[in-house]
């Protein structure tokens, strides 16, 4: 089996595995270059910290409050705000659900739903590749 990535889709390991992506507001077009830690325990698309959510004005295309997702975690159920935004990452340029905690700061994470569109290769604590690679 052979997996072929573009060189630009590979990164040197630095404390963790993270996916670079551009997040843009659907209404205003404001955007930010971000890096989200790969989190296979998170079943959604993307999480951002509340500062990024506010800075990008993601409240302009929010889901209704009655549909904000609730996550069951080790420390209880946490309620998140949820918005639609455009995400550009290797092999993907589409709308995605972006969440941030209703209370608290949050982090930048890339979850399983976003990872489904990517081929991910984690090579020890040396380098990793995330992209639209083909397996031959």
């Amino acid at each position, binding site marked *: 089996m052979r997996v072929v990535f573009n060189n630009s889709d590979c990164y040197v390991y630095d404390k963790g595995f993270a996916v670079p992506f551009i997040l843009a507001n659907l209404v205003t077009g404001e955007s930010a270059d971000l890096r989200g830690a790969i989190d296979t*325990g998170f079943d959604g698309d993307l999480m951002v910290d509340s500062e990024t959510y506010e800075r990008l004005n993601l*409240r302009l295309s929010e889901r*209704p*409050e009655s549909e904000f997702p609730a996550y069951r975690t080790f420390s209880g159920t946490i309620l998140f705000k949820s918005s*639609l935004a455009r995400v550009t990452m290797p092999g993907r340029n589409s709308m995605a659900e972006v969440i941030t905690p209703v209370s608290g700061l949050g982090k930048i*994470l890339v979850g399983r739903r976003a990872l489904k569109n990517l081929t991910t290769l984690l090579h020890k604590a040396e380098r990793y590749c995330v992209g639209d690679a083909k397996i031959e």
Partner: protein
Amino acid sequence: MLTEEGIYLKHIDRAKYRKLKAIAAERGIPVYKLLNEAIAGYIVSSKGSIPSGEGVTSLEEVDNAKYREASETPSLKGRWVGIARGTIVATGDDAESVVGRMREAYSKSAFRHGIVTRVGEAREEREWLAGSIQQQ
């Protein structure tokens, strides 16, 4: 506070009032409901909030109240809606067209909160595995 008592207003533009009646008929709601929405939206956009005691107190609440109403409208079930300033800006079968109309509305007059969603989606409780746990 809603009362049964009527209000008599002079100098109303008849042509615009007829259009308002036509919109109300199209949506299957009474004219007074449409007027109440327009008044609430105007107060919010000019002052940023509605005085307490009027049922809604913030931009988010006005939009969420409008969404609750939309979710009870059978013809909107399963369709995408865009809501801003307490009014339905767009409806459509796909998110892209609704987002396009939200963008147009924002370029004409910037709003500070908006909802983009498919009507009738229920709140999901999702599970978050241990992926993001980090040692302090």
